[in-house]
């Protein structure tokens, strides 16, 4: 196991690379989900506002 | 020559002539970029060292970076004033192809901002201890390169017309696209300074000029229409 983690002396370059990849994937997932939920909430609010005031002309 | 041809030619000439005339009235528009160009070139000996051998090594790079930055500075004046006084809108409504009129405008801009740099180049090159027989190639390379920069820059200037914080954004858009010009231009100058033939790099600059002259006005006209919406 220790031998595997050492990566022939290159462990301090190999593992950060994979950690960065993980971080980029994680950031992408979180950021994409966050932009989706915020867009959805905003859309739902506008939809609710339109329902509450149906006199407003629909586009 | 057909009547359409003369109509187009006349429209382009009118735009070109107007811009040149206006520049004579606002003379600092022409002089400021040249002064800026010379000043950037002055910074390098002060920042590094006045040693002739070092200056000769960095001269091609310094001249081209200075030319790139000062033509970027000059781009501000390409369309902004015409947007503010409504000329640009008149041009889009004139019935003439907008890309063609923008071609004339960009050409005028090149004459007013690119050619002064070409003319100031021998001065800067001498100050940086570049050998005298390389100056011809440097001027030719700058002549071609500033043309490409003007035409690429026209697209960037048109794209940022509709935004408020134009100038920093403009640099961010134009600089990556201008990097090939920097590479080929500096390389041609470097080769000439070493006394080697620089034809290959100059031809590549010429090819880029041909490409940007034909494509950039089309992109710029689309961008102007988007900005004026």
């Amino acid at each position, binding site marked *: 196991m220790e031998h595997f983690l050492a990566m022939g002396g290159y462990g301090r370059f190999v593992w950060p690379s994979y950690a960065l990849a993980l971080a*980029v994937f994680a950031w992408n997932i979180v950021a994409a989900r966050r932009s*989706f939920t915020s867009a*959805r909430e905003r859309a739902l609010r506008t939809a609710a506002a339109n329902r509450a005031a149906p006199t407003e002309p629909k586009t | 020559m057909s009547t359409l041809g003369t109509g187009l030619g006349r429209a382009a000439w009118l735009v070109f002539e107007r811009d040149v005339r206006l520049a004579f009235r606002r003379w600092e528009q022409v002089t400021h970029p040249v002064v800026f160009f010379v000043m950037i070139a002055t910074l390098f000996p002060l920042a590094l060292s006045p040693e002739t051998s070092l200056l000769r090594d960095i001269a091609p790079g310094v001249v081209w970076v200075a030319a790139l930055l000062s033509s970027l500075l000059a781009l501000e004046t390409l369309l902004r004033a015409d947007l503010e006084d409504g000329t640009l809108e008149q041009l889009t409504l004139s019935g003439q192809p907008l890309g063609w009129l923008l071609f004339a405008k960009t050409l005028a801009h090149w004459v007013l901002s690119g050619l002064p740099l070409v003319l100031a180049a021998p001065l800067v090159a001498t100050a940086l201890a570049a050998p005298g027989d390389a100056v011809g190639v440097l001027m030719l390379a700058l002549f071609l390169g500033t043309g490409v920069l003007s035409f690429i820059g026209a697209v960037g200037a048109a*794209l940022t017309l509709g935004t408020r914080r134009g100038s920093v954004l403009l640099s961010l858009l134009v600089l990556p696209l201008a990097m090939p010009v920097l590479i080929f231009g500096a390389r041609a100058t470097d080769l000439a300074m070493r006394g080697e033939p620089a034809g290959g790099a100059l031809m590549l600059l010429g090819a880029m000029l041909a490409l940007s002259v034909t494509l950039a006005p089309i992109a710029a006209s689309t961008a102007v229409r988007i900005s004026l919406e």
Partner: protein
Amino acid sequence: MATWTWFHKLASPPYLYRTAGRLLPWLAIPAIVLTLAGAYGGLVRAPADYQQGEAFRIIYVHAPSAWLSLMAYTVMAAAAAVGLIWRMKLAHALAAATAPIGASFTLLCLATGSLWGRPMWGTWWVWDARLTSQLILFFLYLGYMALHSAYDDTQRADRAAGLLAVVGIVNVPIIHFSVYWWNTLHQGSTVLRADGPAMPPSMLVPLLVSFAGYTLGYAALACVRLRAEVLGRERNASWLQELGRG
């Protein structure tokens, strides 16, 4: 004619929104499985390279992200071109959804290239042709996103930034060529060559699996972001009311 109906359907916001939502699990689960399998294969199963030793394993992160950065830019520019030519609002939505994903993977490619370069070259950064053109690609992504956010009106932002993406894709081959030309003149052969002529299957298979995983990962992320962009562009449409009930 009938073959084009799918294309027209994609131009309908509710259809695109639902399709992207339905596709998402079919893309996301294989993406996660393949990416993890590729990483496992690269870290454990692949033998060490006879020249570069274990440091070579960085390729399983570096090469797929390099591929993804270029592919995403191509997708972005193609979508922007479709949006500009046929005035398709939703094609611009795809371009806007792609930009941050592509930019983040370009950054990953640069960072892993630097981490790989340190043991191979002895410095964190070398002006290698591949790395330099990736850096310029990153600047192009930044330009797209900066221009897009500089406009308040989404439609104008879409079209201005889209035009920049199209101009950028015309320039990408020129930039690549010029950077390679510049590089061959200024330094000798590079140590870091991602495409060795003959790679044994035990090395190649994990790499191909990683490529597939990253590509599907892009598609899944693009689906989520695309749905967000569609919602942002359709503030007042009536189909959003059904969304609230359902």
